[in-house]
Protein backbone atom coordinates (compact mmCIF):
# COMPACT_ATOMS: atom_id res chain seq x y z
CA UNK A 1 0.00 0.00 0.00
CA UNK A 2 1.12 3.43 -0.80
CA UNK A 3 0.80 5.18 2.49
CA UNK A 4 2.02 3.72 5.73
CA UNK A 5 3.39 5.33 8.78
CA UNK A 6 7.16 5.51 8.93
CA UNK A 7 7.01 4.22 12.51
CA UNK A 8 4.94 1.36 11.28
CA UNK A 9 7.32 0.72 8.45
CA UNK A 10 10.12 0.78 10.95
CA UNK A 11 8.25 -1.69 13.09
CA UNK A 12 7.65 -3.96 10.14
CA UNK A 13 11.34 -3.77 9.31
CA UNK A 14 12.20 -4.85 12.84
CA UNK A 15 9.80 -7.73 12.56
CA UNK A 16 11.39 -8.79 9.32
CA UNK A 17 14.79 -8.51 10.87
CA UNK A 18 13.88 -10.74 13.77
CA UNK A 19 12.23 -13.26 11.52
CA UNK A 20 15.10 -13.35 9.10
CA UNK A 21 17.55 -13.83 11.93
CA UNK A 22 15.67 -16.76 13.30
CA UNK A 23 14.95 -18.15 9.87
CA UNK A 24 18.69 -18.26 9.26
CA UNK A 25 19.19 -20.17 12.48
CA UNK A 26 16.60 -22.64 11.29
CA UNK A 27 17.62 -22.99 7.72
CA UNK A 28 21.39 -22.70 7.61
CA UNK A 29 22.12 -25.96 9.42
CA UNK A 30 19.77 -27.76 7.10
CA UNK A 31 21.46 -26.16 4.16
CA UNK A 32 24.72 -27.55 5.45
CA UNK A 33 23.30 -31.05 5.15
CA UNK A 34 21.93 -30.55 1.68
CA UNK A 35 25.06 -28.81 0.52
CA UNK A 36 27.29 -31.55 1.82
CA UNK A 37 25.26 -34.21 0.11
CA UNK A 38 26.75 -32.90 -3.12
CA UNK A 39 30.33 -33.28 -1.95
CA UNK A 40 32.90 -35.98 -1.64
CA UNK A 41 33.44 -37.61 1.73
CA UNK A 42 36.81 -35.98 2.03
CA UNK A 43 35.34 -32.56 1.39
CA UNK A 44 32.44 -33.17 3.73
CA UNK A 45 34.81 -33.61 6.61
CA UNK A 46 37.66 -31.36 5.58
CA UNK A 47 35.50 -28.32 5.04
CA UNK A 48 31.93 -28.92 6.02
CA UNK A 49 30.98 -25.29 5.60
CA UNK A 50 32.25 -24.88 2.08
CA UNK A 51 29.73 -25.05 -0.73
CA UNK A 52 30.46 -27.78 -3.28
CA UNK A 53 33.30 -26.52 -5.47
CA UNK A 54 34.22 -28.05 -8.82
CA UNK A 55 37.03 -29.86 -7.07
CA UNK A 56 34.90 -31.21 -4.25
CA UNK A 57 31.53 -31.64 -5.90
CA UNK A 58 30.33 -35.15 -6.29
CA UNK A 59 27.11 -36.88 -7.01
CA UNK A 60 28.50 -40.14 -5.74
CA UNK A 61 26.08 -40.16 -2.86
CA UNK A 62 23.07 -39.75 -5.08
CA UNK A 63 24.39 -42.33 -7.46
CA UNK A 64 24.76 -44.84 -4.65
CA UNK A 65 21.30 -44.08 -3.41
CA UNK A 66 19.70 -44.52 -6.80
CA UNK A 67 21.60 -47.63 -7.78
CA UNK A 68 21.84 -49.51 -4.51
CA UNK A 69 18.22 -49.40 -3.65
CA UNK A 70 14.85 -48.94 -5.14
CA UNK A 71 14.41 -45.46 -3.85
CA UNK A 72 11.47 -44.58 -6.02
CA UNK A 73 9.53 -47.47 -4.60
CA UNK A 74 10.50 -46.46 -1.09
CA UNK A 75 9.21 -42.99 -1.75
CA UNK A 76 5.98 -44.36 -3.01
CA UNK A 77 5.60 -46.55 0.06
CA UNK A 78 6.32 -43.67 2.39
CA UNK A 79 3.81 -41.49 0.62
CA UNK A 80 1.11 -44.12 0.67
CA UNK A 81 1.63 -44.80 4.33
CA UNK A 82 1.87 -41.17 5.33
CA UNK A 83 -1.09 -39.96 3.37
CA UNK A 84 -3.19 -42.97 4.22
CA UNK A 85 -2.58 -42.64 7.94
CA UNK A 86 -3.04 -38.91 7.75
CA UNK A 87 -6.44 -39.30 6.18
CA UNK A 88 -7.70 -41.61 8.88
CA UNK A 89 -6.13 -39.66 11.71
CA UNK A 90 -7.72 -36.44 10.56
CA UNK A 91 -11.09 -37.97 9.85
CA UNK A 92 -11.44 -40.13 12.91
CA UNK A 93 -9.62 -37.68 15.13
CA UNK A 94 -11.79 -34.75 14.10
CA UNK A 95 -14.94 -36.80 14.56
CA UNK A 96 -13.97 -37.84 18.04
CA UNK A 97 -12.79 -34.34 18.92
CA UNK A 98 -16.12 -32.96 17.78
CA UNK A 99 -18.04 -35.40 19.92
CA UNK A 100 -15.92 -34.56 22.93
CA UNK A 101 -15.98 -30.82 22.53
CA UNK A 102 -19.55 -30.37 21.37
CA UNK A 103 -21.65 -32.64 23.50
CA UNK A 104 -21.96 -32.97 27.19
CA UNK A 105 -22.47 -36.58 28.09
CA UNK A 106 -21.65 -38.87 30.93
CA UNK A 107 -18.45 -40.42 29.66
CA UNK A 108 -17.13 -37.23 28.14
CA UNK A 109 -14.25 -36.51 30.50
CA UNK A 110 -13.46 -40.15 30.89
CA UNK A 111 -13.20 -40.72 27.15
CA UNK A 112 -11.15 -37.60 26.73
CA UNK A 113 -8.67 -38.88 29.24
CA UNK A 114 -8.88 -42.39 27.84
CA UNK A 115 -7.90 -41.14 24.41
CA UNK A 116 -5.20 -38.97 25.90
CA UNK A 117 -3.54 -42.00 27.46
CA UNK A 118 -2.12 -42.69 24.04
CA UNK A 119 0.14 -39.67 24.13
CA UNK A 120 1.55 -40.67 27.46
CA UNK A 121 3.03 -44.05 26.68
CA UNK A 122 5.33 -44.56 23.73
CA UNK A 123 3.56 -46.97 21.41
CA UNK A 124 6.90 -48.63 20.81
CA UNK A 125 6.38 -50.52 24.03
CA UNK A 126 3.46 -52.35 22.56
CA UNK A 127 5.58 -53.55 19.69
CA UNK A 128 5.48 -57.25 20.44
CA UNK A 129 1.73 -57.39 20.95
CA UNK A 130 1.16 -55.29 17.85
CA UNK A 131 3.46 -57.45 15.82
CA UNK A 132 1.74 -60.59 17.05
CA UNK A 133 -1.60 -59.12 16.10
CA UNK A 134 -0.33 -58.25 12.65
CA UNK A 135 1.19 -61.67 12.21
CA UNK A 136 -2.06 -63.39 13.08
CA UNK A 137 -3.94 -61.01 10.80
CA UNK A 138 -1.48 -61.76 8.04
CA UNK A 139 -0.59 -58.12 7.71
CA UNK A 140 3.16 -58.36 8.20
CA UNK A 141 5.03 -56.75 5.36
CA UNK A 142 1.99 -54.84 4.20
CA UNK A 143 1.56 -51.12 4.19
CA UNK A 144 -1.85 -51.64 5.77
CA UNK A 145 -0.17 -52.66 9.00
CA UNK A 146 1.77 -49.42 9.06
CA UNK A 147 -1.29 -47.34 8.25
CA UNK A 148 -3.20 -48.99 11.08
CA UNK A 149 -0.47 -48.43 13.61
CA UNK A 150 0.16 -44.86 12.61
CA UNK A 151 -3.52 -44.09 12.65
CA UNK A 152 -3.77 -45.39 16.18
CA UNK A 153 -0.61 -43.56 17.14
CA UNK A 154 -1.72 -40.24 15.66
CA UNK A 155 -5.25 -40.20 17.01
CA UNK A 156 -4.65 -39.16 20.61
CA UNK A 157 -2.72 -36.03 19.74
CA UNK A 158 -5.15 -35.16 16.96
CA UNK A 159 -8.11 -35.45 19.30
CA UNK A 160 -6.32 -33.47 21.95
CA UNK A 161 -5.47 -30.56 19.68
CA UNK A 162 -8.61 -30.53 17.58
CA UNK A 163 -10.99 -30.58 20.50
CA UNK A 164 -9.23 -27.55 21.90
CA UNK A 165 -9.74 -25.66 18.65
CA UNK A 166 -13.28 -26.90 18.11
CA UNK A 167 -14.36 -25.32 21.34
CA UNK A 168 -13.81 -21.99 19.65
CA UNK A 169 -16.36 -22.49 16.91
CA UNK A 170 -19.30 -20.20 17.51
CA UNK A 171 -22.36 -21.88 18.99
CA UNK A 172 -24.68 -19.59 17.07
CA UNK A 173 -23.25 -20.94 13.87
CA UNK A 174 -23.79 -24.55 14.76
CA UNK A 175 -27.22 -23.65 16.00
CA UNK A 176 -28.03 -21.93 12.74
CA UNK A 177 -27.08 -25.19 11.09
CA UNK A 178 -29.30 -27.16 13.42
CA UNK A 179 -32.22 -24.92 12.62
CA UNK A 180 -31.43 -25.26 8.96
CA UNK A 181 -32.12 -28.92 9.41
CA UNK A 182 -28.55 -30.13 9.25
CA UNK A 183 -28.01 -33.40 11.02
CA UNK A 184 -25.21 -33.53 13.55
CA UNK A 185 -23.11 -35.30 10.93
CA UNK A 186 -23.68 -32.60 8.39
CA UNK A 187 -22.94 -29.92 10.95
CA UNK A 188 -19.64 -31.61 11.51
CA UNK A 189 -18.73 -32.04 7.88
CA UNK A 190 -20.26 -28.90 6.40
CA UNK A 191 -19.71 -26.36 9.15
CA UNK A 192 -17.19 -27.38 11.75
CA UNK A 193 -14.58 -29.09 9.62
CA UNK A 194 -14.13 -26.19 7.21
CA UNK A 195 -13.97 -23.75 10.10
CA UNK A 196 -11.19 -25.54 11.92
CA UNK A 197 -9.13 -25.86 8.79
CA UNK A 198 -6.12 -24.08 10.27
CA UNK A 199 -6.12 -26.52 13.17
CA UNK A 200 -6.60 -29.46 10.84
CA UNK A 201 -3.63 -28.37 8.79
CA UNK A 202 -1.58 -28.00 11.94
CA UNK A 203 -2.53 -31.44 13.14
CA UNK A 204 -1.84 -32.87 9.71
CA UNK A 205 1.66 -31.49 9.80
CA UNK A 206 2.28 -32.72 13.33
CA UNK A 207 0.97 -36.14 12.47
CA UNK A 208 2.81 -36.64 9.26
CA UNK A 209 6.28 -35.77 10.49
CA UNK A 210 6.77 -38.64 12.91
CA UNK A 211 5.15 -41.02 10.47
CA UNK A 212 7.41 -40.01 7.64
CA UNK A 213 10.48 -40.13 9.81
CA UNK A 214 9.67 -43.28 11.74
CA UNK A 215 12.18 -46.04 11.59
CA UNK A 216 10.89 -48.48 14.11
CA UNK A 217 7.61 -49.76 12.79
CA UNK A 218 8.74 -50.09 9.21
CA UNK A 219 11.64 -52.09 10.57
CA UNK A 220 9.42 -54.37 12.60
CA UNK A 221 6.23 -54.55 10.62
CA UNK A 222 7.26 -54.07 7.04
CA UNK A 223 10.98 -54.56 6.49
CA UNK A 224 10.39 -56.34 3.19
CA UNK A 225 11.98 -54.87 0.10
CA UNK A 226 8.59 -54.12 -1.47
CA UNK A 227 7.24 -52.31 1.57
CA UNK A 228 10.32 -50.42 2.73
CA UNK A 229 9.93 -46.74 3.49
CA UNK A 230 12.43 -44.04 2.68
CA UNK A 231 13.67 -43.62 6.20
CA UNK A 232 14.25 -47.32 6.54
CA UNK A 233 15.87 -47.39 3.13
CA UNK A 234 18.33 -44.70 4.13
CA UNK A 235 19.43 -46.79 7.10
CA UNK A 236 21.20 -49.14 4.74
CA UNK A 237 23.97 -46.64 4.54
CA UNK A 238 24.44 -46.35 8.29
CA UNK A 239 26.75 -49.25 8.94
CA UNK A 240 28.10 -50.70 12.14
CA UNK A 241 31.56 -49.29 11.67
CA UNK A 242 31.41 -47.61 8.33
CA UNK A 243 28.92 -45.02 7.38
CA UNK A 244 28.57 -44.02 3.80
CA UNK A 245 28.12 -40.37 4.63
CA UNK A 246 27.67 -39.22 1.07
CA UNK A 247 24.88 -41.68 0.57
CA UNK A 248 23.25 -41.02 3.92
CA UNK A 249 23.26 -37.30 3.31
CA UNK A 250 21.89 -37.77 -0.17
CA UNK A 251 19.18 -40.13 0.96
CA UNK A 252 18.18 -37.87 3.78
CA UNK A 253 18.23 -34.77 1.60
CA UNK A 254 16.01 -36.58 -0.82
CA UNK A 255 13.72 -37.59 2.01
CA UNK A 256 13.25 -33.97 3.07
CA UNK A 257 11.73 -33.02 -0.24
CA UNK A 258 8.44 -34.91 -0.25
CA UNK A 259 7.61 -34.02 3.30
CA UNK A 260 8.43 -30.42 2.59
CA UNK A 261 6.02 -30.54 -0.30
CA UNK A 262 3.36 -32.09 1.91
CA UNK A 263 3.99 -29.44 4.50
CA UNK A 264 3.60 -26.70 1.92
CA UNK A 265 0.35 -28.20 0.74
CA UNK A 266 -1.06 -28.25 4.22
CA UNK A 267 0.12 -24.82 5.16
CA UNK A 268 -1.69 -23.50 2.10
CA UNK A 269 -4.80 -25.01 3.58
CA UNK A 270 -4.02 -23.09 6.70
CA UNK A 271 -3.95 -19.84 4.76
CA UNK A 272 -7.17 -20.67 2.97
CA UNK A 273 -8.72 -21.43 6.29
CA UNK A 274 -7.91 -17.93 7.41
CA UNK A 275 -9.06 -16.12 4.35
CA UNK A 276 -12.37 -17.92 4.47
CA UNK A 277 -12.50 -15.66 7.47
CA UNK A 278 -14.66 -15.96 10.51
CA UNK A 279 -17.53 -13.58 10.87
CA UNK A 280 -18.59 -13.04 14.41
Amino acid at each position, binding site marked *: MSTRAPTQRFRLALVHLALIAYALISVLPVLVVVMNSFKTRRAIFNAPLEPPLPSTASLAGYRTVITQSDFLLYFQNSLVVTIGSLFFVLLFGAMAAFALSEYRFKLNTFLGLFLALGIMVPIRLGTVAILQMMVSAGLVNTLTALVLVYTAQGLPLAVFILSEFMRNV*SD*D*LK*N*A*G*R*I*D*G*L*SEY*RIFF*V*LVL*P*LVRPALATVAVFTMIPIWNDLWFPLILAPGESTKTVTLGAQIFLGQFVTNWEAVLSALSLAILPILVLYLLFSRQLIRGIT*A*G*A*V*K
Partner: protein
Amino acid sequence: MHSLKLTRIVKTFGQVEVLKGVDLEVETGEFVVFVGPSGCGKSTLMRIIAGLETQTSGTVEIGGRNVDATVPARRGIAMVFQSYALYPHLTVAGNMTLALKEDGVPKAEREARVEKAAGLLQLSPLLKRRPAELSGGQRQRVAIGRAIVREPTLFLFDEPLSNLDAALRVATRLEIAKLHRTLGATMIYVTHDQIEAMTLADRIVVLNGGTVQQVGRPIDLYNRPDNLFVAGFIGSPKMNFLTKRFAEEAGAATLGVRPEHLKVDPAGAWAGTVRHAEHLGSDTYLYVVLEDGQEVTVRIPEETPIAVDDAVRLSPLPGRLHRFGADGLALRAA
Protein backbone atom coordinates in the same frame (compact mmCIF):
# COMPACT_ATOMS: atom_id res chain seq x y z
CA MET B 1 -55.09 -24.93 17.07
CA HIS B 2 -52.24 -23.22 18.76
CA SER B 3 -49.18 -22.88 16.64
CA LEU B 4 -47.04 -22.20 19.67
CA LYS B 5 -47.77 -22.55 23.33
CA LEU B 6 -45.39 -21.62 26.09
CA THR B 7 -46.24 -22.70 29.60
CA ARG B 8 -44.49 -21.17 32.58
CA ILE B 9 -41.10 -20.92 30.91
CA VAL B 10 -38.36 -20.17 33.42
CA LYS B 11 -34.73 -19.75 32.53
CA THR B 12 -31.85 -19.08 34.85
CA PHE B 13 -28.22 -18.49 33.98
CA GLY B 14 -26.35 -19.46 37.08
CA GLN B 15 -27.83 -17.18 39.75
CA VAL B 16 -29.65 -14.86 37.41
CA GLU B 17 -33.28 -15.63 36.62
CA VAL B 18 -33.65 -14.25 33.13
CA LEU B 19 -37.16 -15.53 32.39
CA LYS B 20 -39.52 -15.76 35.31
CA GLY B 21 -42.38 -17.84 34.05
CA VAL B 22 -43.58 -16.82 30.63
CA ASP B 23 -46.96 -18.03 29.35
CA LEU B 24 -47.98 -17.40 25.79
CA GLU B 25 -50.25 -18.85 23.15
CA VAL B 26 -49.80 -18.01 19.51
CA GLU B 27 -52.46 -18.93 16.96
CA THR B 28 -51.53 -20.42 13.64
CA GLY B 29 -50.72 -17.73 11.14
CA GLU B 30 -50.42 -15.06 13.77
CA PHE B 31 -47.70 -12.41 13.69
CA VAL B 32 -46.44 -11.83 17.20
CA VAL B 33 -43.88 -9.18 18.02
CA PHE B 34 -41.78 -9.26 21.18
CA VAL B 35 -40.68 -5.91 22.47
CA GLY B 36 -38.93 -5.01 25.66
CA PRO B 37 -35.87 -3.27 26.91
CA SER B 38 -32.46 -4.58 26.10
CA GLY B 39 -31.55 -7.59 28.19
CA CYS B 40 -35.12 -8.43 29.16
CA GLY B 41 -34.85 -11.94 27.75
CA LYS B 42 -36.27 -11.69 24.24
CA SER B 43 -33.44 -13.51 22.53
CA THR B 44 -33.35 -16.08 25.28
CA LEU B 45 -37.04 -16.81 24.81
CA MET B 46 -36.57 -17.15 21.06
CA ARG B 47 -33.70 -19.54 21.58
CA ILE B 48 -35.80 -21.63 23.91
CA ILE B 49 -38.56 -21.79 21.32
CA ALA B 50 -36.02 -22.84 18.73
CA GLY B 51 -34.66 -25.50 21.04
CA LEU B 52 -31.21 -24.01 21.16
CA GLU B 53 -31.36 -23.36 24.85
CA THR B 54 -33.05 -25.59 27.39
CA GLN B 55 -35.55 -23.93 29.65
CA THR B 56 -34.97 -24.43 33.32
CA SER B 57 -38.61 -25.35 33.68
CA GLY B 58 -41.82 -25.07 31.70
CA THR B 59 -42.86 -26.56 28.39
CA VAL B 60 -42.84 -25.53 24.76
CA GLU B 61 -45.48 -26.86 22.37
CA ILE B 62 -45.32 -26.26 18.65
CA GLY B 63 -48.27 -27.24 16.51
CA GLY B 64 -49.91 -28.89 19.49
CA ARG B 65 -46.95 -31.17 20.07
CA ASN B 66 -44.60 -30.95 23.03
CA VAL B 67 -41.20 -30.32 21.49
CA ASP B 68 -39.07 -30.26 24.61
CA ALA B 69 -37.31 -33.36 23.40
CA THR B 70 -37.20 -32.42 19.73
CA VAL B 71 -34.03 -31.19 18.09
CA PRO B 72 -34.16 -27.73 16.49
CA ALA B 73 -34.08 -29.17 13.01
CA ARG B 74 -37.28 -31.11 13.65
CA ARG B 75 -39.26 -28.25 15.09
CA GLY B 76 -40.14 -26.86 11.68
CA ILE B 77 -38.76 -23.44 12.37
CA ALA B 78 -36.47 -20.95 10.69
CA MET B 79 -34.57 -18.39 12.68
CA VAL B 80 -32.75 -15.17 11.96
CA PHE B 81 -30.07 -14.64 14.58
CA GLN B 82 -29.32 -11.29 16.10
CA SER B 83 -25.67 -12.02 15.39
CA TYR B 84 -26.53 -13.27 11.89
CA ALA B 85 -24.56 -16.51 12.38
CA LEU B 86 -23.70 -16.76 8.72
CA TYR B 87 -21.55 -19.64 7.58
CA PRO B 88 -18.29 -17.82 6.97
CA HIS B 89 -16.93 -20.33 4.52
CA LEU B 90 -19.94 -20.42 2.24
CA THR B 91 -20.94 -17.82 -0.31
CA VAL B 92 -24.17 -15.91 0.04
CA ALA B 93 -25.85 -18.39 -2.27
CA GLY B 94 -24.34 -21.27 -0.32
CA ASN B 95 -25.64 -19.84 2.92
CA MET B 96 -29.11 -19.67 1.53
CA THR B 97 -29.23 -23.07 -0.14
CA LEU B 98 -27.64 -25.20 2.53
CA ALA B 99 -30.87 -25.94 4.35
CA LEU B 100 -32.71 -26.57 1.10
CA LYS B 101 -30.14 -29.07 -0.03
CA GLU B 102 -30.55 -30.70 3.31
CA ASP B 103 -34.28 -30.97 2.73
CA GLY B 104 -33.64 -32.49 -0.66
CA VAL B 105 -35.25 -29.64 -2.58
CA PRO B 106 -34.44 -30.14 -6.25
CA LYS B 107 -31.80 -27.91 -7.76
CA ALA B 108 -34.05 -25.95 -10.07
CA GLU B 109 -36.46 -25.14 -7.30
CA ARG B 110 -33.61 -24.22 -5.00
CA GLU B 111 -32.23 -21.79 -7.49
CA ALA B 112 -35.61 -20.29 -8.10
CA ARG B 113 -36.19 -19.70 -4.42
CA VAL B 114 -32.78 -18.21 -3.86
CA GLU B 115 -33.19 -15.96 -6.83
CA LYS B 116 -36.49 -14.74 -5.58
CA ALA B 117 -35.23 -14.05 -2.07
CA ALA B 118 -32.08 -12.42 -3.41
CA GLY B 119 -34.11 -10.17 -5.66
CA LEU B 120 -36.36 -9.19 -2.82
CA LEU B 121 -33.46 -8.42 -0.50
CA GLN B 122 -31.32 -6.80 -3.18
CA LEU B 123 -28.66 -9.43 -2.79
CA SER B 124 -28.49 -10.61 -6.38
CA PRO B 125 -25.12 -9.02 -7.22
CA LEU B 126 -23.60 -10.42 -4.04
CA LEU B 127 -24.53 -14.08 -4.38
CA LYS B 128 -20.95 -15.15 -5.00
CA ARG B 129 -19.38 -13.26 -2.11
CA ARG B 130 -18.51 -14.57 1.30
CA PRO B 131 -19.80 -13.01 4.50
CA ALA B 132 -16.47 -11.37 5.30
CA GLU B 133 -16.82 -9.30 2.13
CA LEU B 134 -20.22 -7.91 3.01
CA SER B 135 -21.32 -4.82 4.86
CA GLY B 136 -23.27 -5.14 8.09
CA GLY B 137 -26.63 -4.60 6.44
CA GLN B 138 -25.81 -7.00 3.65
CA ARG B 139 -25.01 -9.68 6.17
CA GLN B 140 -28.30 -9.13 7.89
CA ARG B 141 -30.12 -9.47 4.62
CA VAL B 142 -28.39 -12.75 3.91
CA ALA B 143 -29.51 -13.99 7.29
CA ILE B 144 -33.09 -13.05 6.46
CA GLY B 145 -32.79 -14.62 3.05
CA ARG B 146 -31.57 -17.82 4.57
CA ALA B 147 -34.66 -18.03 6.72
CA ILE B 148 -37.25 -17.15 4.11
CA VAL B 149 -36.07 -19.51 1.39
CA ARG B 150 -36.99 -22.36 3.69
CA GLU B 151 -40.67 -21.42 3.96
CA PRO B 152 -41.17 -23.05 7.35
CA THR B 153 -44.32 -22.89 9.39
CA LEU B 154 -42.82 -20.94 12.25
CA PHE B 155 -40.43 -18.05 11.74
CA LEU B 156 -38.31 -16.59 14.49
CA PHE B 157 -36.82 -13.22 13.67
CA ASP B 158 -34.42 -11.67 16.18
CA GLU B 159 -34.13 -8.02 15.25
CA PRO B 160 -33.80 -8.78 11.59
CA LEU B 161 -33.86 -5.22 10.32
CA SER B 162 -31.79 -3.34 12.84
CA ASN B 163 -28.92 -2.72 10.44
CA LEU B 164 -30.93 -1.77 7.37
CA ASP B 165 -31.47 1.71 6.07
CA ALA B 166 -34.87 3.28 6.29
CA ALA B 167 -35.88 2.62 2.70
CA LEU B 168 -34.78 -0.98 2.69
CA ARG B 169 -36.27 -1.41 6.08
CA VAL B 170 -39.65 -0.32 4.92
CA ALA B 171 -39.38 -2.50 1.84
CA THR B 172 -38.26 -5.53 3.79
CA ARG B 173 -40.89 -4.93 6.40
CA LEU B 174 -43.57 -4.88 3.76
CA GLU B 175 -42.09 -8.03 2.23
CA ILE B 176 -42.15 -9.80 5.54
CA ALA B 177 -45.76 -8.75 5.97
CA LYS B 178 -46.53 -10.09 2.50
CA LEU B 179 -44.65 -13.28 3.19
CA HIS B 180 -46.68 -13.66 6.32
CA ARG B 181 -49.89 -13.29 4.40
CA THR B 182 -48.97 -15.53 1.47
CA LEU B 183 -47.33 -18.30 3.47
CA GLY B 184 -49.79 -18.14 6.28
CA ALA B 185 -46.79 -18.89 8.47
CA THR B 186 -46.69 -18.04 12.13
CA MET B 187 -44.07 -15.45 12.91
CA ILE B 188 -42.37 -14.39 16.08
CA TYR B 189 -40.45 -11.21 15.69
CA VAL B 190 -38.21 -9.25 18.01
CA THR B 191 -37.72 -5.59 17.28
CA HIS B 192 -36.84 -2.32 18.89
CA ASP B 193 -38.52 -0.33 16.20
CA GLN B 194 -41.88 1.07 17.19
CA ILE B 195 -43.12 1.37 13.65
CA GLU B 196 -42.20 -2.21 12.84
CA ALA B 197 -43.89 -3.44 15.96
CA MET B 198 -47.04 -1.41 15.36
CA THR B 199 -47.40 -2.15 11.68
CA LEU B 200 -46.42 -5.80 11.53
CA ALA B 201 -47.87 -7.25 14.66
CA ASP B 202 -51.17 -8.99 15.05
CA ARG B 203 -50.28 -8.96 18.70
CA ILE B 204 -47.45 -7.41 20.62
CA VAL B 205 -45.93 -9.04 23.68
CA VAL B 206 -44.25 -6.58 25.97
CA LEU B 207 -41.54 -8.18 28.08
CA ASN B 208 -39.74 -6.63 30.99
CA GLY B 209 -37.40 -8.19 33.49
CA GLY B 210 -38.30 -11.67 32.37
CA THR B 211 -42.07 -11.37 32.70
CA VAL B 212 -44.83 -10.55 30.25
CA GLN B 213 -46.19 -7.10 30.95
CA GLN B 214 -49.03 -7.06 28.48
CA VAL B 215 -50.13 -8.88 25.38
CA GLY B 216 -52.49 -7.32 22.91
CA ARG B 217 -53.24 -5.76 19.54
CA PRO B 218 -50.84 -2.90 18.84
CA ILE B 219 -53.50 -0.29 18.87
CA ASP B 220 -54.84 -1.57 22.16
CA LEU B 221 -51.45 -1.34 23.76
CA TYR B 222 -51.15 2.17 22.44
CA ASN B 223 -54.58 3.21 23.61
CA ARG B 224 -54.98 1.19 26.76
CA PRO B 225 -51.63 0.28 28.31
CA ASP B 226 -52.05 -1.86 31.40
CA ASN B 227 -49.33 -0.22 33.34
CA LEU B 228 -46.76 2.49 33.46
CA PHE B 229 -44.10 0.31 31.87
CA VAL B 230 -46.14 -0.51 28.79
CA ALA B 231 -47.36 3.02 28.53
CA GLY B 232 -43.84 4.32 28.54
CA PHE B 233 -42.48 1.65 26.29
CA ILE B 234 -45.02 1.77 23.48
CA GLY B 235 -45.04 4.95 21.48
CA SER B 236 -42.26 7.24 20.43
CA PRO B 237 -41.48 9.79 21.61
CA LYS B 238 -42.35 8.30 24.98
CA MET B 239 -45.53 9.12 26.84
CA ASN B 240 -45.18 12.07 29.23
CA PHE B 241 -45.75 11.20 32.84
CA LEU B 242 -46.86 13.92 35.19
CA THR B 243 -47.18 13.69 38.91
CA LYS B 244 -47.99 16.21 41.61
CA ARG B 245 -50.72 18.72 40.87
CA PHE B 246 -51.62 17.44 37.43
CA ALA B 247 -52.02 13.85 38.58
CA GLU B 248 -53.80 14.73 41.75
CA GLU B 249 -56.31 16.79 39.86
CA ALA B 250 -57.08 13.74 37.74
CA GLY B 251 -57.28 11.51 40.79
CA ALA B 252 -54.24 9.39 39.94
CA ALA B 253 -50.74 8.84 41.18
CA THR B 254 -49.38 9.42 37.70
CA LEU B 255 -50.99 11.03 34.75
CA GLY B 256 -49.84 10.03 31.29
CA VAL B 257 -50.27 11.90 28.07
CA ARG B 258 -48.60 11.17 24.78
CA PRO B 259 -46.63 13.93 23.01
CA GLU B 260 -48.93 13.71 20.00
CA HIS B 261 -51.93 14.33 22.22
CA LEU B 262 -50.72 17.66 23.50
CA LYS B 263 -51.67 20.61 21.38
CA VAL B 264 -50.22 24.08 21.46
CA ASP B 265 -53.27 26.14 22.22
CA PRO B 266 -53.29 29.71 23.47
CA ALA B 267 -56.23 28.69 25.59
CA GLY B 268 -54.52 25.64 26.97
CA ALA B 269 -54.61 24.86 30.62
CA TRP B 270 -50.93 24.07 31.02
CA ALA B 271 -48.41 26.85 30.72
CA GLY B 272 -44.73 26.37 30.13
CA THR B 273 -41.58 27.40 28.32
CA VAL B 274 -39.88 25.69 25.39
CA ARG B 275 -36.51 24.40 26.50
CA HIS B 276 -35.40 22.63 23.35
CA ALA B 277 -36.85 21.88 19.94
CA GLU B 278 -36.02 19.10 17.52
CA HIS B 279 -36.91 19.61 13.89
CA LEU B 280 -37.43 16.47 11.93
CA GLY B 281 -38.95 18.12 8.89
CA SER B 282 -42.12 16.14 9.09
CA ASP B 283 -42.51 16.84 12.79
CA THR B 284 -41.19 19.07 15.46
CA TYR B 285 -40.62 17.91 19.00
CA LEU B 286 -40.88 20.56 21.62
CA TYR B 287 -39.48 19.96 25.09
CA VAL B 288 -41.56 22.15 27.35
CA VAL B 289 -40.91 22.85 31.01
CA LEU B 290 -44.17 23.33 32.80
CA GLU B 291 -44.67 25.83 35.58
CA ASP B 292 -44.00 23.33 38.33
CA GLY B 293 -40.75 22.24 36.70
CA GLN B 294 -41.99 19.00 35.16
CA GLU B 295 -40.99 18.53 31.55
CA VAL B 296 -43.21 17.29 28.73
CA THR B 297 -42.55 16.50 25.10
CA VAL B 298 -44.94 17.78 22.50
CA ARG B 299 -45.08 16.49 18.99
CA ILE B 300 -46.25 18.90 16.35
CA PRO B 301 -46.81 17.14 13.03
CA GLU B 302 -45.31 19.90 10.96
CA GLU B 303 -42.75 22.62 11.15
CA THR B 304 -43.56 25.37 13.52
CA PRO B 305 -42.30 28.87 14.17
CA ILE B 306 -42.24 28.25 17.89
CA ALA B 307 -38.68 28.64 19.09
CA VAL B 308 -36.69 27.87 22.20
CA ASP B 309 -37.58 30.03 25.20
CA ASP B 310 -41.01 30.86 23.80
CA ALA B 311 -43.80 30.62 26.33
CA VAL B 312 -46.50 28.23 25.23
CA ARG B 313 -49.77 26.95 26.57
CA LEU B 314 -50.71 23.33 26.04
CA SER B 315 -53.94 21.46 26.13
CA PRO B 316 -54.24 17.68 26.17
CA LEU B 317 -56.67 16.14 23.74
CA PRO B 318 -59.81 15.14 25.52
CA GLY B 319 -60.08 11.45 26.35
CA ARG B 320 -56.41 10.91 25.72
CA LEU B 321 -55.23 11.06 29.28
CA HIS B 322 -53.99 7.91 31.01
CA ARG B 323 -54.31 7.52 34.74
CA PHE B 324 -52.14 5.21 36.81
CA GLY B 325 -52.33 4.21 40.43
CA ALA B 326 -49.51 4.24 42.92
CA ASP B 327 -48.80 0.61 42.03
CA GLY B 328 -48.22 1.60 38.41
CA LEU B 329 -51.36 -0.11 37.13
CA ALA B 330 -53.76 1.72 34.90
CA LEU B 331 -56.92 3.08 36.52
CA ARG B 332 -59.52 2.23 33.94
CA ALA B 333 -62.83 3.47 35.23
CA ALA B 334 -61.86 7.04 34.59
